[in-house]
């Protein structure tokens, strides 16, 4: 009964997300990224939950770090559109020193964005077991400090690029993880972000990525 109730709620949210995507994503407002945003919008409007679930990015074998031909942002665009990344084996940088750098940069969202985009140049690596502590850090910053700040002030109080990159990475993990906290962070931000919000970051198209990857995470849990 519990699982059915969860699946039903997620299906309703997916329907709501797809139904409201035209209002939330107006391609003409994204200038040079208009084409990408249009594609995401069309995909969400037309694809079924099963189609979305089928295109949830497959993660390589547990523990295996991979590299892609493209950088983090280009890879996220591809994954948002359901495209497959060309992956090859890679070697991860140590996680402890990365986590330390991430912690030190907690007051510097631009630096955090740079750090995350660099380490996760192949974004599926964010879902690997070795990244557990990083995921906890990212989730905690999203759901404690940033959430509180947005609720106390406005969405403009946080760095949009940094916020949306973290939400997109979280969505990749939420699609495959049994840990519902990550999916619920996406639920929470969907409810928190103003319906007509136009991010001011230089990568504002990440809003479309977040919606696309959130939709895939919902579809994966329903399926």
């Amino acid at each position, binding site marked *: *009964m519990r699982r059915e109730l969860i699946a039903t709620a997620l299906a309703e949210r997916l329907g709501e997300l797809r139904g409201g995507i035209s209002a939330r994503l107006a391609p003409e407002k994204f200038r040079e990224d208009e084409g990408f945003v249009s594609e995401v919008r069309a995909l969400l409007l037309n694809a079924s939950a099963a189609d979305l679930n089928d295109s949830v990015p497959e993660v390589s074998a547990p523990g295996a770090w991979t590299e892609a031909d493209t950088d983090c942002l280009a890879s996220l665009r591809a994954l948002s559109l359901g495209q497959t990344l060309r992956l090859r084996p890679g070697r991860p940088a140590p996680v402890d020193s990365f986590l330390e750098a991430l912690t030190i940069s907690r007051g510097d969202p631009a630096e955090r964005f740079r750090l995350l985009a660099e380490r996760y140049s192949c974004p599926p690596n964010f879902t690997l077991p070795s990244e557990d502590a990083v995921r906890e850090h990212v989730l905690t910053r999203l759901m404690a400090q940033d959430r509180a700040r947005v609720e106390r002030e406005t969405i403009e109080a946080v760095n949009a690029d940094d916020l949306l990159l973290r939400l997109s990475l979280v969505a990749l993990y939420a699609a495959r993880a049994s840990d*519902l906290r990550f999916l619920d962070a996406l639920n929470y931000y*969907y409810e928190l972000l103003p319906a007509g919000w136009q991010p001011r970051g230089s990568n504002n198209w990440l809003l479309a990525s977040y919606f696309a990857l959130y939709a895939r995470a919902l579809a994966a849990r329903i399926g």
Partner: protein
Amino acid sequence: MRAGILANSLPAALRIYDEVKRVEGCEPFVILCPAAEESRTHSLARHLARLLLKRGRLKSLRLLSGRRVFLFQAPLDHPQSIARLGKLRLDVGLHKAGSIYRDPTIKAFRLGILNPHIGLLPEFRGRNVMEWSLILGQPAGITVFFIDSGIDTGREIVLREEVDLSHCASLAEARQYLFDLDARYFRRALELLRSNNFEHQVNDGSGRRYFVMSKLFRGVVEKIIEAKS
């Protein structure tokens, strides 16, 4: 045992006061402290208004005249408040204030500050833990533990117990039911602490930290509670 109830208002503390004074050898006090970012004037005005308007006026006045209530003018973490707590020589604090405590405040109590967490530790730390327990198909419950400066990471658990919520018809009712058990659980925790053979359980930090739940999932929890009631 001198127990200080740390509260933002006298009415909130009265229920706990009545319950813990039943513990043999326990001497309860009420420490009223301003809510976070509240001015002294506002705090004083709020206490006076509550004293005049809320039920239990006579009992409140009796406690005030009996020097059982201490009105702090600065937040609990302020050095002035910490010094005053030290002078009161309290054995244990009972958390009923909307505060996060820093180490110097916690150490002002001989044993520490007890928190009646409405979730089972170590599994469920953080926010909305009753809701998270239910949506994950786990039992709801209460854990009374000595806090540290982390989020539900204090190592010493005094009392940990599952609580049946099947009589609750809604999420709000279930939450309120658990919150209202605080006085009773404080009393039981103090009784355990006074017993000769008490051994605390360990909060080993193996659980997860949970966060504020979305409206979507709270809706699911509401349906789970309705279905069980």
